């Protein structure tokens, strides 16, 4: 579903991502682990076609991110950062419908889909209220609904739990689990080991723009003599830092 091939991004002299390659299979939840400034956001932005790779490329659902960015965008849904990024002056319904329209859904389809999502996320009561007037938790649910309104095959989530309280974090985790249940392919970035262990099938550890380890969590653990993921992470990251 996702094939990343020697993907690099340089900002002037800074090499934010240096030739990473990995694959994510259909229906898999892939965790991208890394410290601050490791290059997680940059990688996800390239996959979302917001940034153009300096070199290398990737295919998403069969589409090349450089050659067919529009096709790529119509097959992805995103949730970036702690901010929900809703339009405060539009109602929840309008926020969701806007993204549906932009992804070429018909009015009838959108209406049907919003009904469905409202039920799933339990937001029927505040659907017609302005997004700016809602609580953070409510907004987050609207952002989930907006991200999957066009039923994308791939979900890209960049540190979706950063800066959230416990119950909001649980909502995000449930959302990721439900995406997996629907057979969506998910990449999400995080610097929380427990969250990655709980949700992911496979992980990639990224450090200073390089992919230093990738594989099945159990596989990786056995390779490092059954240490905890955290110890492995520290070891890998520490190792590299010393050089």
């Amino acid at each position: 579903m996702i094939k990343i091939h020697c993907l690099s991004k340089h900002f002037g002299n800074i090499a934010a991502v240096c030739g990473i390659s990995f694959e994510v299979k259909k229906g898999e939840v892939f965790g991208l682990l890394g410290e601050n400034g490791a290059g997680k956001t940059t990688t996800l932005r390239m996959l979302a076609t917001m940034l153009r790779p300096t070199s290398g490329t990737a295919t998403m659902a069969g589409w090349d991110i450089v050659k067919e960015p529009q096709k790529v965008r119509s097959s992805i849904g995103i949730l970036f950062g702690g901010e929900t990024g809703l339009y405060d002056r539009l109602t929840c319904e309008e926020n969701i419908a806007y993204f549906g329209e932009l992804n070429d859904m018909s009015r009838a389809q959108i209406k049907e889909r919003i009904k469905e999502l409202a039920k799933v996320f339990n937001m029927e009561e505040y659907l017609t209220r302005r997004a700016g007037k809602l609580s953070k938790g409510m907004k987050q649910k609207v952002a989930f609904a907006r991200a999957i309104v066009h039923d994308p095959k791939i979900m890209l989530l960049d540190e979706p739990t950063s800066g959230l309280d416990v119950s909001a974090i649980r909502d995000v985790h449930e959302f990721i689990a439900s995406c997996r249940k629907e057979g969506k392919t998910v990449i999400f970035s995080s610097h929380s080991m427990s969250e990655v262990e709980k949700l992911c099938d496979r992980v990639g550890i990224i450090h200073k723009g390089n992919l230093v380890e990738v594989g099945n969590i159990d596989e990786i653990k056995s390779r490092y003599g059954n240490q905890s993921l955290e110890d492995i992470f520290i070891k890998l990251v520490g190792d590299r830092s010393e050089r």
Partner: protein
Amino acid sequence: MNASKHVWIVFKKEVKDIVRDKKTLLTSIFVPMLLIPILSMLVGGSIEDLSRDINENVTIALTQESNTDEIRDIVENQIIKDYPNISLIDTDDPIKAINESKVRVVLDFEKDYASKLAEGKPFAIKLIYDKSQTKSQGSLGILWNAIGDYNDRIVKQRLDSLGVNPEILTPAMIEESNIANEEKTSGSILAVSLPMMLVVLMASGGIAAATDLVAGEKERNTFEPLLTTKPGRSSLLLGKYLAVTLFSFVSVVATMIGAIIGFVIDPSSMGMGVGTDITGFSIQPLAFFMVIVISITLGMTFSGLQIALSSYAKSFKEAQTYMSFLMIIVMIPAFATMLMQPNDIPVYMFLVPVMNTLSAFKIVLGGSINYAYLLMALGSSVVYVVITLCLAATLFKKENVILRS
């Protein structure tokens, strides 16, 4: 492709979004609507009051030495007889009265005026006034006229007594004939104020929308999700661009509506506005159509620039600063050409941005239409639309500009 559909979707959403923002509505519709009525009331009203005041209630007095019965008689029954707006006041200290604005002008007759008058020699009347007081200075002319009339009357009497026809004093009579027709005169008043106001309004009308639609989106973190939706950046840009363009005209239309409402409610208060001048005013349809198109292109040029600035800005605040700069830059040509007469506009002005629109307006409203000039203005305006749109597109597609963080 369905790129045009995407543009339309973005445009619709942006308009809806802006219309719901009370602050933006206030600045782009409400304030412009009140602009002309308020300006007219403040400026027009006070100018009118002042000129009425100067002409009415002209109070004069005589100096202590001149305050004799004979002089009072000359002043009251000869000099100001035909001037009901001038009144002679009794006062002990005329200079103090001027300072206190009780008296506008004080007259001082030469001591031996009576003998000189009888001998047919000139005598002096000194007019004492205060140049620092508008009303005092303004009344001076009225007294000049009154004393002039008095002189004429005495001359006529003297010539009559000599048996000479007073007409010999007027070998050549002057007759004036104004070749500017009604359209031209009323037009030139319009030509001064209307284009300038229009340009400033168009430049300001789109500011709130432009700031909000890119810099605002970046700041509120709504921009990144938008960039990951299907439409290409050009479609997003065009949708936003058209919304900003719409709003730069909304202000113009709001201003016009305000002017018309003001005129309907109180025609006299709109003396300096466009209201009174518009009545009985007509221009050629083709020329009118061309200036409309030229001004639309100017609106589009402003939108392009504003979107570019808003994209370039690192924050909402920074975008606002850039916009104020743009306003100042626009005001300069607007004021610089304000008093320029339609016939005196140098040809190159029809090629300079902003100036070309102002000049086109002036020649059309001033009634001296030149289609070659209008075409130059139109052509150059279109070029500026393309340039600014390209600039906006370039910045909008630059990832280090659009994803600053």
